[in-house]
């Protein structure tokens, strides 16, 4: 009896000193090495990883799954996952991975929380509007599970920092919102030999694909999308809209794929890549597509002999211009200053009582949300479709058949891009006197923000 107590005492004392050393950051020794067959009662070790009694309870419901088990839980605790983007995808993905007990969770983002994020970016909150997203995320995640090591990266992912940052991780989740950064993540992940769990969402649709998995075997982003889409075909959630649970679902699915990769689920058919499509309003919402394999000629993951092969050096030297590759995003500027009025100038027109036509070119759904008094709604799409017609001018004229032609016209849209294009079309079609067609700068959003007409909803 005494001997076993003494032995236990000795073990505990040793452990206390080891823990103290670790706390001071000087210990790189496994805490429990000689005890493999008889670990202390509250510790199970696997290399340097161990679970506390609290963690046994916390992760119990997933550990009893044969797909996870104690081995899977240890793998999770040893894993280092980077989430790029703390938005609609990154929020739920981060929550589930933190909850599952990932050892190190890095989050990179340089945006602040806005209240228009909150319908989908569920780990941020109303009280944290204005806070850096990464800080907000870590606040939530620490409260959810204090065990993981959270690494905040408050910066954009760039060609300068991406190699350094990604070197610290074993798996990356692409939760971003633009092709330029998706190509960057891909190229760096391929160089680092890290799998990518990639997802995206827009409106009521989502897409999910696991790339470079296993590294050097599965296809990469460039194998599937060797050429970027034309910049004008890229639509973001701000313009196109997004249903919260749709992007949430895709983020949750990213967490599932990440857990499968980390716990090396043997069910996964190595070398076969599937893409999952989700369409909330589709006849069969989930669809699994069989994708091509890795391509020998891929400039990212293909044969190293290729001259145009992307390397660590070509990224570090700044030779890779991802924004230019994807065509950048150009603001519309098709009118000169004299053809545009500010929201304040338009308010003066209204106040002066001058008879005029206010043409709102937002789509019917947006027009239904809020509109200015007396405005005529003809959606931009109708004008855009006419650009390809020989009869463009005639058809535009017929739209205004019933309108008097002797009064000024003001064109408004949501942000002030579409309205410029329509104003230009009206001028060219000669529907109204050329010098009396104006675009309202900044559109409905600027109208609301400026408060020139008192309270007005911004969406």
């Amino acid at each position, binding site marked *: 009896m005494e001997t076993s107590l003494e032995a236990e005492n000795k073990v505990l004392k040793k452990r206390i000193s080891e823990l103290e050393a670790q706390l001071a950051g000087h210990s790189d020794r496994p805490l429990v090495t000689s005890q493999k067959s008889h670990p202390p009662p509250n510790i199970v070790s696997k290399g340097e990883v161990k679970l506390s009694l609290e963690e046994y309870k916390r992760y119990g419901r997933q550990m009893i799954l044969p797909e996870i088990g104690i081995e899977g839980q240890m793998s999770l605790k040893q894993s280092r996952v980077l989430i790029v*983007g703390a*938005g*609609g*995808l*990154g929020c739920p993905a981060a929550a589930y991975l933190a909850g599952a007990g990932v050892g190190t969770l890095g989050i990179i983002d340089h945006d602040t929380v806005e209240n228009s994020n909150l319908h989908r970016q569920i780990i941020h909150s109303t009280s944290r509007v204005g806070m850096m997203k990464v800080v907000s995320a870590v606040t939530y995640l620490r409260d959810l599970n204090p065990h993981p090591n959270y690494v905040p990266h408050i910066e954009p992912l760039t060609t300068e920092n991406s190699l350094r940052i990604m070197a610290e991780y074993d798996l990356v989740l*692409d*939760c*971003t*919102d*633009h*092709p330029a950064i*998706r190509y960057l993540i891909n190229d760096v992940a391929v160089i680092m030999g890290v799998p990518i769990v990639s*997802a*995206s*969402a*827009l*409106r009521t*649709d*989502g*897409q999910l694909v696991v790339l470079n998995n296993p590294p050097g075997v599965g296809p990469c982003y460039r194998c*599937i*999308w*060797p*050429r*970027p*889409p*034309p910049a004008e*075909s*890229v*639509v*973001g*959630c701000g313009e*196109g809209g*997004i249903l919260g649970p749709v*992007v949430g679902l*895709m983020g949750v699915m990213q967490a599932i794929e990440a857990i499968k990769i980390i716990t090396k689920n043997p069910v996964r058919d190595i070398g076969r890549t599937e*893409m999952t*499509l989700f*369409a909330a309003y*589709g*006849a069969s919402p989930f*669809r*699994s*597509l*069989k*994708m*091509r394999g890795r391509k020998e000629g891929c400039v990212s993951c293909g044969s190293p002999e290729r001259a145009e092969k992307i390397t660590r050096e070509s990224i570090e030297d700044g030779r890779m211009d991802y924004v230019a590759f994807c065509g950048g995003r150009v603001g519309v500027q098709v009118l000169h200053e004299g053809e545009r009025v500010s929201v304040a100038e338009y308010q003066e027109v209204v106040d002066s009582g001058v008879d005029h036509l206010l043409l709102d070119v937002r789509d019917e759904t947006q027009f239904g949300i809020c509109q200015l008094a007396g405005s005529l709604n003809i959606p931009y799409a109708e004008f*855009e*479709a*006419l*650009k*390809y*017609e020989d009869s463009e001018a005639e058809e535009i004229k017929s739209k205004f058949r019933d309108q008097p032609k002797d009064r000024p016209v003001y064109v408004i849209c949501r942000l002030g891009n579409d309205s410029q294009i329509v104003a230009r079309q009206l001028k060219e079609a000669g529907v109204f006197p050329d010098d009396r067609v104006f675009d309202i700068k900044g559109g409905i959003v600027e109208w609301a923000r400026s408060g020139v007409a008192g309270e007005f909803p911004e969406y």
Partner: protein
Amino acid sequence: MGEQQDPSPNGIYSKPVSLNIEFSGGLEMLFSNQRSHHIQMPAKGPSKQPVNIGFLVRHLCENLMKDKRKDLFVLEDRIRPGILVLINDADWELEGEEEYLIQDGDTILFVSTLHGG
């Protein structure tokens, strides 16, 4: 759509093929806001060759696509970058891309890649 029967040189009539054409990721907006279309198309092209995906894409542009913004679907005579083509749910690269010969009953899905997050 088009001719229902197409006399072949040796006098045998080739039946039209029935296809399911599907759009996803926003492409449906270019096709009357409809995700799924059942179409019939001649099984042979003008020079009596069996029709392939390349032929189908031109056929869709001319007959099914009411939207004038053709360059959102086809650029320089090819499917525009960012659109995946799936033949019976398999990447068309696995099936020979534009050269794949259309079979009666095939489902051809066009997916516009999404970038939002």
